[in-house]
């Protein structure tokens, strides 16, 4: 089937088996292998990308269902020469080790900070109507859909807090 995806502002016209997941379309057909396949079943978060601004598990979505959608992957957030604030923060705090879950962590964190900004509550929020704040506990809960077997979690939380604080300063 013919599918058009806009990935990182570039249009990709792809001819796909309807079974192709968004993840496999991004990786194998659009050739953007930064997005990783860790479990292929929505259990690890390594495949996290943003679709129309929202983070999702790209492994649990069919590419054909995203015809016309705008997808942002890790490659679209920054380059080694021009890192996004979160990418730079992960580097600074050693928010990764093997690096395999990292693209998913960073895409997830990028969208997660927007969710906080939009005031979405989380499981650990004291109240449902209070302001959402990027505290350690809030970040840890909201990032729990991204497993890291190297267990860089404390450094991941530190990286996200760093980037969130920098954004506050800039705002």
């Amino acid at each position, binding site marked *: 089937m013919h599918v058009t995806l806009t990935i990182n502002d570039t249009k990709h016209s792809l001819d796909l*088996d309807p*079974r*192709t997941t968004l993840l496999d379309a991004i*990786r*194998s057909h659009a*050739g*953007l*292998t*930064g*997005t*990783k*396949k*860790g*479990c*292929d*079943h929505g*259990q*690890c978060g*390594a495949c996290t990308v943003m679709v129309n601004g929202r983070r999702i598990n790209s492994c649990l979505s069919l590419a054909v269902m995203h015809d016309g959608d705008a997808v942002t992957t*890790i*490659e679209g957030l*920054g*380059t*080694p020469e021009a*890192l996004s604030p979160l*990418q*730079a923060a*992960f*580097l*600074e705090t*050693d928010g*990764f*080790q*093997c*690096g*395999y*879950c*990292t*693209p998913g962590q*960073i895409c997830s964190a990028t969208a997660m900070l927007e969710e906080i900004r939009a005031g979405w509550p989380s499981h*650990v929020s004291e109240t449902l109507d209070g302001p959402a704040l990027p505290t*350690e*506990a809030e*970040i*840890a*809960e909201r*990032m*729990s*859909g*991204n*497993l*890291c*077997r*190297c*267990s*860089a*979690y*404390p450094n*991941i*939380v530190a990286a996200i807090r760093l980037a969130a604080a920098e954004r506050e300063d800039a705002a």
Partner: protein
Amino acid sequence: MTREMTHDGPDADHRLDGMAQGVLGRGEPRPEGALKVTGRAVYTGDQQAPGMVHGALVRATITRGRVTTLNSATVLEMPGVLAVIDDPRLVRFSGQGATTKPPKADAAGVVYHGQPIALVVAETLEQARHAALRLTVDYAEEPGAVTGPEDPAAEVELPQKKQSETGAPDAALEAADTVIDRIYRTASMSSAPMEPHASLAEWQGGKLVLHSTLQMLASAQGQVAAALGIEPEDIRILAPHVGGGFGSKLGISPETVAAAIAAQQMRRPVSVVCTRPQSMETTSRRSETLQRIQMGADDEGRLTMIGHEALVSNLPGQKFSEPVQQATHFTYEAAHRRVVHRVARVHRLVAASVRAPGEAVGATAFECAMDELADKLGLCPVALRLRNIPKVEPGTGRPFSSHKLAEALTEGARRFGWEHRHASPRARREGEWWIGMGMSSLVRVNTVMEAKARVSLSLDGTALVETDMTDIGTGSYAILSQIAAEMLGLPMGSVETVLGDTDLPASSGSGGSFGAASTGSAVYLACLELRSRLAEAMGCPEPELTLKDGHAIHDNRKVPLSTLMGGAAMQAEGHLIPGEAEDKARQATWGAAFAEVGVNAITGEIRVRRMLGTFAIGRVLNAQTARSQALGGMIWGIGMALTEELVHDARDGHIVNRDLAEYHVPVNADVPALEVHFLEERDDWAPMQAKGIGELGICGAGAAIVNAVHNACGVRVRSLPMTVDKVLAGLVEAEADQG
């Protein structure tokens, strides 16, 4: 030129402390970090090759027997399907590490439920996966499958080398003032690296080029060669980035061999990426353990007797058995000792090394028993440990290469605020939560492996480090660059490290915490050779030569390196050879873990509130990557203590929870703020005075949590993981006791 060093004894020179660049030990960011955070680091499964097709493994659905027929005809008619491969060279499970012996071939002979038995190859991934699921298989089942180590039908072996007895343990136990005699259990566990096992094989004119998720390339090359019946020279393995291994990628796995065979047969590149269930079910696991720990102590808390019996399991014929008691021999003093090690032969996925084989489970259980002893003696758990630290290795009388356990314990206790712990359980409550503290010693044997590396110095003032070493998240890129930068007096940005290619000098590979010290030493030696040549050109003895920021300095003379190089690039190899040092002294890394937990008095849920680890690992090569390794180890301790259990169905041994939804590795919310503190140390018996850090964190940390749970709520759980069902049972029992 190769600079060789056989590691026969201590080295008190500490040359690295005399270097001038000042980059070693610093928390330098990972040189490959920018690639990783931007998705530009290319892993095995990211590789594509022109004309590449896809393979999918097929799984046995019996526990023991033989494949009689693969009903290939129907799947061969399916769209895109190219072949069903059942080559007798296909292997049944993953190989062990540091050996060129391949895993058992003849995949048609089924020895565990879930074993790969064939590979379906198709044009696309979707086609291959679908066909593999649809392939029907006929079997001749064999009776007598043994699915668990405690099955009375299990054959139990006692490998002679792993049994030992000193003094009169039974009499000592009988005579002891205080006795502990307890059974502990730890669960079967999965390495579960985030990157599934994967291989891409391509034959180029009789040579096999293999991209594969492997930790140790040189030995894997030998395994692939032996598995396929070709020469190692005809195989090139590439693994510049590996998405975690934790032991499961030490040896080759079924998909490695399957990809190579398929690519040969298809004359096309073949990619085989394991599904998550396959990655957990067809590679290897950590054996479950049953441990009986006996201790006798006098009134002062001095151990008189230590007994440690273990029952572990593996497939029939497998030499590896989880070395549960590896550190029991030397951690604490006791005149009378007994170690009994039993291996039950079971039809379950092969057992092999998972992060810190031995101490991860052995020290953890032992440290739980120590807590019970402290409790019984009415002694502070830290004091009990301090009282039993041996001066020389018990049994052998060998010296310790260095020994910082006492300092790790006292410094850890001080930093953690251990003095605020209540000696009795159920003393601190916040709402529904019992709060408690626990601690444990950390201990892990330390070893080095043979390793080679090449360092080249260019006229433009840059250096290139080359070795087949892997970086599985451990920080190899960073620390090898740092060693070269320090030795050659170059800024970090002037050193490039290239890894993960068997065309490069053979390193130790990554595993057993030996990678940094072993391969690092090879880099160190190569640099020493380059320094000698530069010193010669400078006209001074090498030890007097100062190298800094691309310049050589001696006697008030400062010369750019290029001037000394005589117009030509320089190159040297370093070669570390393990020698007698290991026999002459007991080498280990030491530490202590402290944990504060909350236990929900109603549900039995456990939350780790904070945790601190002290670590003595010799020279720290990179403060940041070492800290990350220590954190990772401690968090694995959390997983072992609280959530991780690979469940085998008692009826057929198959792994019930073979995915990341139901095999519970800790998530971010399970992990509190953790503190890591390194003790300043140089171990003269370790090359570069540096030891390993990848595993120490898990070697006891789980016990700190178990002990903290007891301190919180009075419940002792002796079967890990401590899931709510087990804690709840203890809470209910305690309430009943209290009427």
